């Protein structure tokens, strides 16, 4: 019986392909709704990275690398980090101090919710959604590339 060296059975592959967009959109939901519901940049990032991790096991690390190499994934991470620091720097360029929440009361994400229980409006939270997205990108890139590198690394030296 010829067994593919990488990846798992077709059943798992089909299910993984079906779950992948679902996990992705769920992770984006968790990231973007970080200031309303449980979740945020880290959690959503970890979930999104898990989607990639699932592909690594279902289709093999080579396959994932051929779609998105570790270098390009780590660019995502650098961009996330830059976004965070730049948002922090904007904090004292536009307002008072580093990392201050300069968007509260502005147009984008600026509304202030009513005190106490409320259904949650997406357009609130000041810089928090931006930072959530930054950290989310960073964590997706970071964790996915860690697993990818560790899965690939073993073969790299053997060659």
């Amino acid at each position, binding site marked *: 019986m010829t*067994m*593919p*060296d*990488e990846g*798992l059975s077709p059943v*798992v592959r089909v299910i993984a392909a079906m*779950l992948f967009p*679902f*996990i992705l959109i*769920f992770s984006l939901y*968790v990231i973007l709704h970080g200031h309303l*519901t*449980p*979740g945020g940049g880290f*959690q959503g990032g970890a*979930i999104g990275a*898990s989607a990639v*991790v*699932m592909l*690594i*096991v*279902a289709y*093999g*690390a080579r396959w994932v690398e051929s779609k998105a190499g570790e270098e390009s994934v780590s660019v995502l991470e650098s961009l996330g980090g830059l976004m965070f620091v730049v948002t922090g720097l904007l904090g004292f360029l536009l307002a008072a101090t580093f990392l201050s929440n300069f968007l509260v009361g502005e147009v984008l994400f600026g509304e202030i919710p009513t005190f106490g229980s409320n259904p949650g409006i997406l357009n609130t939270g000041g810089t928090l959604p931006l930072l959530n997205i930054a950290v989310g990108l960073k964590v997706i890139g970071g964790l996915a590339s860690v697993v990818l590198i560790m*899965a690939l690394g*073993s*073969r790299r030296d053997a060659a």
Partner: protein
Amino acid sequence: MNWTDPFLISLAVLLLCMFLALIRVLLGPTAPDRVVALDTINTMVVAAMLVFGAAYREIIYIDVAIVYAVLSFITTLYVAKYLEGGSL
């Protein structure tokens, strides 16, 4: 009628079930046995999270259950991949 208590009792029973499954993790002679127990515990944890969220009438808690339902399966896949052999 207050529905907190019935849900919490269900949770307690689920915890008992988890304890029994944990015994299988301890005993399981081979690795697949342990993974089966892990899967069972995982399913129960998802159920427990749903039940607990309902007990406290917190809608937003259910997200955690979704995360677990989706993600713990990846653990299973990794161990399965290891047992199957072949490179990752």
